[in-house]
């Protein structure tokens, strides 16, 4: 009984108390309408897009200003990474060519008739860990589409997805050539990936239930093809620049050009 009191006295001290990334912003820039689009008829439930009458959205993402200096990556935490890459390494937030900004995820955010159905691809999207970097750095896939995660490095990686809506996962890949597959059950833009072994490694995936997305490539160019006629909200996302949206209306077989401009910050 008193031992309890004693213990209580000793332990009273211990036991008794026991998106926005800025920049970018949202801009609503109505697309200049050179010609009145034919008003699309409402799609019947479960309809597939009539690709023969579909239109396209093409465009370019531009970086306004001088790209900020990239951060130096010290890979000396893992001798294998040092061996696998050549020369000094830096982050690659701003890959700019001819004023065009790469690695911007562009997608149809709104306006798509929900009655359309799109087959889920069985071909997996792929992400590889090579040279202690993720390849690709930004990409998109469909809800339910398999994502094949591969480790091409002769060192250990863990791939750790940190979604807000989907299920978080953290998978270890200790052996070179290992592959694992994962699927996402819900739309989410963007899901960050990181490697907790190599703190500099990160990637982003946009998960959508339709096929209208693209990642700007070299020169900042992108294309969203085979869109049914209609008015859409198009969003562009960049890991440092944030998001921008524009509205665009396309008619049957029409191609509209869009330009997104991110300011160098």
């Amino acid at each position: 009984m008193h031992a309890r009191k004693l213990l209580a006295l000793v332990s009273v001290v211990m036991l008794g108390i026991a998106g926005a990334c800025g920049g970018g912003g949202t801009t609503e820039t109505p697309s200049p309408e050179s010609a009145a689009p034919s008003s699309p008829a409402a799609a019947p439930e479960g309809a597939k897009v009539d690709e023969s009458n579909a239109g396209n959205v093409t465009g370019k993402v531009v970086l306004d200003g001088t790209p900020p200096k990239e951060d130096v990556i010290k890979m000396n935490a893992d001798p294998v990474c040092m061996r696998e890459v050549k020369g000094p390494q830096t982050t690659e937030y701003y890959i700019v060519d001819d004023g065009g900004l790469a690695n911007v995820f562009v997608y149809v955010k709104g306006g798509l008739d929900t009655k359309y159905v799109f087959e889920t691809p069985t071909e997996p999207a792929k992400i590889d860990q090579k040279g202690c970097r993720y390849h690709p750095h930004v990409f998109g896939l469909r809800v339910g589409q398999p994502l094949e995660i591969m480790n091409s490095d002769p060192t250990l990686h863990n791939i750790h997805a940190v979604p807000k809506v989907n299920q978080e996962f953290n998978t270890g890949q200790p052996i070179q050539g290992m592959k694992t597959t994962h699927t996402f059950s819900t739309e989410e833009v963007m899901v960050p990936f990181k490697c907790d072994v190599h703190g500099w490694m990160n990637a982003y995936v946009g998960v959508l239930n339709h096929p209208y997305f693209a990642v700007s490539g070299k020169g900042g160019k992108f294309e969203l093809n085979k869109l049914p006629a209609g008015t859409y909200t198009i969003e562009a996302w960049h890991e440092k620049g944030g998001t921008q949206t524009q509205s665009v209306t396309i008619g049957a077989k029409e191609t509209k050009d869009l330009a997104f401009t991110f300011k160098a910050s």
Partner: protein
Amino acid sequence: MWLHRFARLVAAGTLLLIVAGGLVTSTGSGLAVPDWPTSYGYFMFSFPLSKMVGGIYYEHGHRLIASTVGMLTIALAAWLWWQERRRWVRRLGVLALVAVVLQGVLGGITVLYFLPAPISVAHAGLAQMFFCLTVTIALVTSDGWRRRYSCAATETRPDPSGDRWLARLTIATSATLYLQILVGATMRHTGAGLAIPDFPLSFGALVPPRWTMAIAINFIHRIGAVVVAVLVCSTFIRVFARHKDRLELVKPTVLAVLLVAAQITLGAMTVLTKKAVEVNTAHVATGAVLLATCLLLTLRVHRTRLDEVAAHDQGLEPSSFTPAAAGPLAFDVRRSGR
């Protein structure tokens, strides 16, 4: 004597473990090993050293040290159980064993569930409790404690546990410090460490002009630092005013003042260096040492009272227990057996 030395070893190992845990959080390596209790499928002790790279070095290193401390704690609890005559000390050994097992399980859960803040904070809080337990065991198995910090058969100096102000002050200091560490752990595991980016002001003002949960946690930790500093300084003044002839109180009191100064400096540097790994980890470790120091002081101040409670527990009549008259080892001799 060897038991005491072993207890000190366990306490030192636990401090090392806290440093390793601090490094895991400071480097963001908490999930560098995704599985538990295995490490990338390997049995913990067979994981190749060559694969301990990047964040794995910190996370797996933390697990190895934790396992070692766990085994040392088992040995300590067994040693106490078989050799220690004081029942309450034996129970401390068992409590330490339970704490270290629970701590290991919390560590596993926090990995498997992707570092949920409440579990991570509980893991950090229990780490400090376990450290305090090991320090307590090391203290109460020491010669000084057994001899009541006096070689004289007759003690003429006033008993510090009779100094009510000091008795209350030391408990309040240790308790407040533990709370402060819990707030710090909450700040650390919710990513609120730089919610207020400047120091000593908050957004250029004495009080933050705007509030979020992260800013509130950060600001409470700053206020807590001031409260702890005031309490430690008050203890220092009281000890020097009334008990400056008791080295067993003077030494930890001076050390506590120095540690508080170092800790506040490290806290400021943590903000100003934007959580530099070394500084951030040193802040965690210094907090643990400061807590242990304050606890040690508290226990020494309450030495006689603890004896009285223990005497009751061992079946001795309160009136028959007069350690000062009976000599320094009276309590051990007069025990009534297990």
